[in-house]
């Protein structure tokens, strides 16, 4: 069975998630899309703003998908898949989940990747965050939820560009520093090149050295290493990071030069302590052959992680020699 791609659209309250989703569903390339909308409050409204076949829109109301209705999300996705298999709905080709404006995307990503009821049937394709060009900077200053949404995204869509220029007001620079690996698309009234939103492999190939950056409790940095790492080192490194850094690690993604796989770098990608299995590229995407691991965190020490990586590799090397 081929796993069905699932994308998560997140973004702060009023940042244009529903407008973006509505435009996407009008694109012929995405007409076979099932939608799960999570609304906060007793009466859902957002689904009324999305024009699509009702049979493929499921509502999760009365709580936020990242906390109180996480189980509902899994059940909703499972229900959609069952209806698809039974032929009682149009055979959709992807699922899009729109979160509440206050949601932390991390638990949603974790559920999609690890929940036994759906993880084999779906494939997390991308996390898309909308950021309002006019109010985005102020929102990032005052609402840590919005910082986390942007930090965890595979792709950031800057909305309401008719109201403000994100390059002129500093928002574009700030988003680049916060999440350097994520492409930034600018939408006008929700219109954006949809194909760019749904290509994780492209996103991963764009990993580049992130300038060290610290703002609002979030720091972004890049670990670099010119010598290849042993595969065991990589495994141990991720274990230690997951075990000790906990929720302070927001996101880690990297291209890793592995001793045992010359010329074929590993792509690693994790949200907090949950990682995708490493993917192996057929070749390096650019001339730079060094290991680059971009970390977005809440206060982790770049030097500590770099020292840890070197120390682990020294140990592994010593064991393999002796």
């Amino acid at each position, binding site marked *: 069975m081929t796993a069905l791609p699932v994308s998560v659209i997140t973004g702060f309250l009023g940042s244009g998630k529903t407008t973006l989703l509505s435009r996407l569903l009008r694109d012929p390339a995405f007409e076979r899309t099932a939608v799960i909308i999570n609304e906060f409050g007793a009466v859902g409204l957002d689904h009324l703003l999305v024009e699509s076949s009702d049979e493929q829109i499921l509502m999760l109301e009365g709580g936020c998908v990242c906390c109180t209705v996480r189980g509902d999300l899994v059940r909703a996705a499972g229900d959609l898949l069952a209806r698809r298999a039974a032929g009682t709905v149009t055979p959709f080709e992807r699922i899009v989940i729109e979160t509440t404006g206050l949601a932390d995307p991390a638990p949603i990503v974790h559920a999609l990747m690890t929940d036994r009821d759906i993880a084999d049937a779906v*494939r*997390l394709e991308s996390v898309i965050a909308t950021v309002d060009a006019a109010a985005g900077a102020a929102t990032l200053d005052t609402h840590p939820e919005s910082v986390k949404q942007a930090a965890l995204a595979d792709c950031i869509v800057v909305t309401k560009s008719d109201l403000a220029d994100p390059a002129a007001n500093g928002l574009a620079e700030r988003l680049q520093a916060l999440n350097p690996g994520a492409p930034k698309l600018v939408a006008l009234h929700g219109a954006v090149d949809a194909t760019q939103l749904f290509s994780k492999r492209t996103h991963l190939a764009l990993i580049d050295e992130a300038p060290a950056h610290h703002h609002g409790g979030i720091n972004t940095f890049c670990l670099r290493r010119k010598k290849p790492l042993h595969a065991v080192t990589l495994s141990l490194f991720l274990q230690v990071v997951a075990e*000790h850094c906990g929720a302070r690690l927001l996101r880690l993604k990297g291209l890793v030069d592995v001793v045992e796989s010359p010329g074929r770098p590993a792509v690693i990608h994790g949200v907090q*302590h*949950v990682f995708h*299995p490493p993917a192996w590229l057929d070749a390096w995407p650019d001339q730079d052959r060094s290991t680059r691991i971009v970390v977005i965190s809440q206060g982790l*020490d770049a030097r500590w992680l770099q*020292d840890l990586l070197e120390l682990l590799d020294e140990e592994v090397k010593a064991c393999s020699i002796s």
Partner: protein
Amino acid sequence: MLRDVLSGALRLWDVAGTVEPDADGLIVTVGEAALRVVPRAPHGWLVVRGDETLGVHAGVPGLLRHLRDELAPHAKRGRLIIGAQ
């Protein structure tokens, strides 16, 4: 480099302490508790309190786990999960 990694780990666990060299290895002190970390041939580490060996570890991951359990039992523990996809 081990000294830097252990010092950083104390900060990560939110405990105030020191890591100082001694004749055999390192002494990690947090409050009243002092543990010695001694290299073990051909590789690995011993964790020693006074004359008592508390643990033997083949590498840094086990060593860090042991020190955290002894010196920062309140620190949150995570677990690496590799998703199905």
